[in-house]
Every structure is written in C-alpha cells, then in structure tokens.
C-alpha cells in the first residue's frame, strides 16, 4: 500500500510538473494520521445526518423486539412520518423526533443505482415495510407459542429466545442486515462516493477555489465524502480514529469488525479507513484521480466484506442445522442474519464498472430459495453450499475462508 501510494504520488507530481496546465491551487496530498481535516483551525468533517439515521435504525431494530409496539409505530420509525405523510414522533429520543431525516427516504435511494430505477427502489422500500408489518401481524400474536414448520412462534437458540415467522425467519434480523445494504452500503458506494455526486454542479470548481457551503466551513465535495464516511463510522466513539474501537453500533461498522477478526481478512478495516482518509486528503489537495482511486478501493473492499459476511452466515447456518431432532434455533438465527445479508448483496458495487455485483433477479432467486415452502425448516446443506459458492465466485475469496 505504502509503495503504491509512493508511486502514485511520484507519478502525480511528475504529471503536474510535466504538463503544468493545472493553474489552480493543486498541492501535495497531506494525509493525516487520523480522520482530521480543518480549515482556518476549524474541523471541516461533519456527518450528523448519518449519525441520526444510524440512531433511527437502532431504535427501529430494538423496537421490533418489543411486543408493545404497533405496526403503525414501527412504520413511523422507518419513515419518520405518518402513513399520510404528516409529522410523526415515533422515537424515544426526542432529537430523532425533531429531525426531518428518515431511513425510508434513503433506502435504495442512491444516485448511481436508483435515480433512474425508481420502480425497484419502491419495491425495496415496500419489502422493508412488509417485513416490519409482518413482525407485528404474524410474529407478535404467536409470541407465546412454540414455532413449528409453517407456524410463527418462539424458538430457543442456546440460552436465547428467537421469534420467527412461519418459515423460521426473524424479521428483525432481515430488516437490520437488509438495511446495512439498502441504506448504508448503497448510500456509501453508489451515492456519496460516486463521481456523479462528488462532482455535481460546481463542486470541483468550488472545491479547487476553497469556496465553502453557506454557513459551513466545508466544501460540498468534502462534505459528500464525509457523509459516506459517516454511514460507516458515524456511531463511533471517536470517529477521527474509529479503528481503535472498531465494531460499534449495529450496522456496517459492527460486521466489518467481524470480518476483520477473521485471520483470512485481517487488516481489511484499516485498509478501508486508510482509503477514506487518503481520498479525503486528495479532495483537500484537489487531486481527483487519487480520490477516485481511493473510492474504488473502498467500493471493492466494502463489497467484499459484505459478501464474506453473507457466506459466513450461510455456512454457520448450515453447520448449525440439527442432524436429528428439531433444535433449529441456532441455525435459524444464523440463516436470518444470512437472509438479510443476501438481500444486501444487491447494493454491492463492482469498482471496475458501473454495475452491481448481483442483479435484482439473482438476489430474488436466492431469497426465494431461502424462504420457499417452510423455508429454513426444510432448507438443505446443498442449497446453502451452492448459494455460498455463487456468492464467493464473484470475489477473490473462498467459501472456506469466509465460512469460519
């Protein structure tokens, strides 16, 4: 990494010296040791909207396990408004109630993937609302029943109690892990790190000239980059150095940490963080080629981490399937997390072209395989292995590496 950076840096200096046509204030990239960027002594890093949405998501996920919640209340947490579009105050945290932001408006809402694909975006938002509603209409009424094939209820996972639908699926898990893809990853990879967003309007000119947003100390381009960063690290205790406390919150940061703990992928979190930092420093220096290179690294590594975690849960679920009896709880929990991650595959981004790694129909087919009939009650190890292979084949890791 260091060598590549050195080489790139030399080349970019040579390019500058050689052509000398860039008459603006391109300067050397000053890559700080932590994610700290300032202008006139003030920090230019800001992502309160992302921190807010992570907090809204956390409340929603927790509320889905609270039997006193109504479907209307949960849906309002998702949309931060009533079904008729009026202001709602669904959260325990009043700061969230006061916010005009919502999770729903940013679900499957990236510029690159969904600005001209609003029908799929609407389908995806409807999927989340279906799962949220079904938690209340299907699972809550059976909270004091034992789950059996075709019937929702509770099931033991070791000393934990899980509440599943008729197919063995935990809706709160599929919503949680599905939002990691549809909200977090989609916004990072396909929206804020997209040149279309970063370079929109006068962003480049303004950034080159150091023209800041009205009332702010950051340029628009700096802010867009930081908003991507905030979706990953916005709930960190110290977001300037999030690697020190990697894994905080219940969204991407947590599962990146899990992948990073696997010796086969150790260091991936730091690589992603370093790319965020260097890319941001490149924006300050006006070096957009370097910025795009770092964005590509982030797209590649976050996509890979998500795919690894997907395979991990499918494999853990397979391993936990009982060989006799019906002690399915541990397997169902892993497979529920796995289903959420499978749903999230749609939002992964191949850095080498404009495409997603997985099409709508590929993801739909996998979700169908997981939930068809009595779902997890009758899923086979062969199906889970084949699905794992299908996912791993798109990346440079093996099922065995991801599975343990």
């Amino acid at each position, binding site marked *: 990494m260091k060598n590549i950076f050195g080489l790139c840096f030399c080349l970019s200096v040579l390019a500058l010296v050689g052509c000398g046509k860039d008459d603006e204030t391109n300067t050397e990239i000053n890559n700080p040791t932590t994610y700290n960027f300032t202008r006139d002594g003030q920090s230019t890093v800001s992502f309160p909207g992302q921190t807010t949405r992570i907090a809204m998501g956390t409340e929603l996920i927790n509320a889905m396990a609270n039997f006193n919640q109504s479907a209307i209340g949960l849906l309002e947490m998702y949309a931060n408004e009533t079904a008729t579009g009026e202001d709602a105050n669904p959260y325990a945290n009043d700061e969230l109630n006061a916010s005009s932001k919502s999770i729903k408006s940013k679900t499957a809402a990236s510029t690159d993937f969904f600005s001209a694909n609003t029908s799929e975006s609407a389908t995806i938002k409807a999927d989340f609302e279906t799962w949220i509603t079904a938690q209340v209409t299907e699972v809550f009424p059976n909270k*004091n029943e034992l789950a059996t094939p075709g019937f929702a209820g509770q099931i033991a996972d070791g000393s934990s*109690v899980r509440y599943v639908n008729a197919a063995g699926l935990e809706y709160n898990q599929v919503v949680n892990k599905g939002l990691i893809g549809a909200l977090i990853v989609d916004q990072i990879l396909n929206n804020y790190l997209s040149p279309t967003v970063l370079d929109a309007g006068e962003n480049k000119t303004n950034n080159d000239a150091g023209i800041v947003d009205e009332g702010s100390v950051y340029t628009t381009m700096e802010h867009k980059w930081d908003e991507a960063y905030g979706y990953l690290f916005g709930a960190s205790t110290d977001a300037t150095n999030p690697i020190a406390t990697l894994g905080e919150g219940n969204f991407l940061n947590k599962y990146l940490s899990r992948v990073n703990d696997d010796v086969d992928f150790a260091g991936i979190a730091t690589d992603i963080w370093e790319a965020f930092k260097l890319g941001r420093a490149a924006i300050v220096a006006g070096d957009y080629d370097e910025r795009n290179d770092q964005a590509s690294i982030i797209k590649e590594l976050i996509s890979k981490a998500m795919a690894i975690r997907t395979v991990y849960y499918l494999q853990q679920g397979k391993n936990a399937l009982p060989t006799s009896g019906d002690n399915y*709880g541990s397997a169902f929990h892993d497979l529920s997390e796995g289903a959420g991650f499978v749903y999230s595959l749609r939002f992964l981004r191949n850095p080498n072209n404009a495409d997603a790694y997985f099409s709508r129909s590929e993801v739909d087919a996998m979700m169908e395989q997981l939930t068809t009939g009595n779902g997890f009650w009758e899923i086979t190890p062969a199906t889970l292995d084949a699905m794992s292979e299908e996912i791993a084949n798109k990346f440079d890791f093996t099922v065995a590496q991801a599975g343990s």
Partner: protein
Amino acid sequence: MKLTKLNFFLGVLLVGLFVTSCNDKDDDPTTSVDNFNRSEMLSFWADDIIIPAYESFDGTLDNFVEAKDAFANDQSIDHLENLKATWLISYKSWQNVAMFDIGKAEEINFLYSMNIFPADVDLIEENISNGDYNLTLPSNMDAQGFPAIEYLLFGMDDSIVPLDLLSEPNRIAYISDLVDRMKSLNSEVLNDWKTNFRNTFVENNGSSATASTDKMINDFLFHFEKHFRAGKIGIPAGVFSGSELSSLAEAPYSGKSKELFFASFDAIQNFFTGLSFDKSTTGLSLQQYLSNIAQTNESQDISIAILQQWESATTSAQHLMDNFKDQVEQDNSKMLNTYDEIQKSVVLLKVDMMQALNIQVDYVDADGD
C-alpha cells in the same frame, strides 16, 4: 492430512534427527501420528462415565421429587429443610452431566432448561400469580431449573423465606412443576442413552467433524470455556463487561457457589483423566490420548501442563468465599485471579490440545445479538 508410509518414515527420521541434533521441540501438528483407540475411549466414556453420571443424577432427582411431594403435603420445617438439602445434592450431581450436551440432551436443549442463571425473578413471580405457564417455551428457560428453585427456596432477605409464603398453593404447585419437569427431562435423556444413543455414540468412532470424539471434545471444551470459566467465574467477576456483576453468580441466594464450582471442576478433571464415575477404575481418556500422541511423535505431552495449570486454578479457587456473589462484592481480585488461572488452561485446551488431537474447534463466539 494422511501421510504416506515413506513420508511418515522420513518424517519420523527428520524429527528424530532434529530432536537429537538440537534438542528442540518441533511439534508441527500436521506431522503428528495418531494410533489411539478412539472406540475404546468412547465405550469407556459412555459406559463408565456418562451413563452412570446420568443415572446418579436421576437418583438425586427421585429424592428431590419425593422431598417436594412431602413438602406439598405438609409444610413443616423439617420437610422444607429436606427439600433444600435434596435441591443441593441434585444441583451438585447436575454438574457431572452438564458437559454432555450431545444426543438427546442437545436435541431438547436440556442444559438450558436446567441451569440458566440468573433466574428471572419477575417472570417466576408472574408465572406463579398467573398460575398459567408453559414451561416448554424457550422464553421460560430462565424461570425454571435449579436457579429458579433456588430463588423460591432461598431467595428472600437473609436467605430465609417465610414458611407461610412458601406454603401458598400457587408457589407449591410451581415448585412441584419445576421439579417434575427436571425429572422428566432427565429421564428422556437417560433413557435415550441407554436404549439408543449409546451405540450410535460408540460406533461413530471416526475422526471427522461429526464423529463422536470430535463432537464430545468440542462439547467438553465449550462447557469448560463458556459454562465453567465464564459462567461460574468470569461473568460475575466482570471480565466481559468491565464492571462487576455479582448478582450473576451461580447460586447467589443459597451461597453454594463454591461447592457447585468444585463439583463441576471435579467432574471436568475426572472426565479428562478418565476416572470412572464410581471412581473404581480408569480408562482411556483425553489425558492418555495426549500422552499417547506425545509418545508416538516424541513431542511434548500437553496433558501434563493442563493438569499442572488446573492445580494452580484449584489452589486459587480454594481461597474464594462460599458465595461468589459476596466474593465479587468484597474482594473481586480473588475472583479475577481464579479466572486468570483457569484462562491459562483454556489456552492449553483450545489451542495446544486441539492441535495435538488434530480436531477443529466447531463453535465460534456468538455475535451477541
């Protein structure tokens, strides 16, 4: 992983030369040779340790059932004292079978119906006042078993539950249902071992991840790490939370934590060294397995280090108070010291032993969500 004869010969030759020439210990697990008789070990485990342990536990449950019936008929002090005594005997006996989470026990989530602590006091009281509860529901796991009964018998201020409170019909009925359920679950597990699973277990004598030896050793390891090290010591001492959680000690109302800890530790050590349940004989064991591998491969015998480390852990734990709740509150450093001594042996078991036996650890730490 299988070596050809020639490679094996060369390997032994090279290892031999290596040992002779530099007197070093290169115990690369991939070259270790395993000619241990797994079948004989499995038979010994089933016939001389596991089934007798379940039978003995079953006997204590019979006495427990009798004692609660006697108390249900006549709420005398004597009957109450006898009920408490049979609870403790049975709870200690439970420690002998807790590690065998395999077969029917695994299928029916046995251990999570018997010893989830802390008991959910609010849920227990709710069940009692409703009088309408389904103990087979997973959400009632922490409202039953030994910890729930402990709360009911010992769980008031100063460990004295007023006799007239305990004599309420709902309360008596609840205790009775809990004890009956424990007896019936254990009968199911014991009966399956005797009529069905014993042979399956012994015949599954290979060395794959699903073979009996691999599974049983993983269960043993899991029990040692999660239920013994963490459950009895680490969690109340705050090792995983950063703050002391004294109320999460085992048996906090009766103050029998230490007794239960040592009952469990004895069972663990006897299983490891291959002492039969009735203590009359020894058979093939993990200790012998490790010694055998060390001999065959002229490598270090890990079992010696494990047993030494357990002596240190025993010495440390002997300094603990009877009630670990009190120990945490009054001087947690002693708990932490015991934890550290146990943890050193976890490393020996989970890394060195598993490598020497060439068995994969089949569980991962839970996400916590």
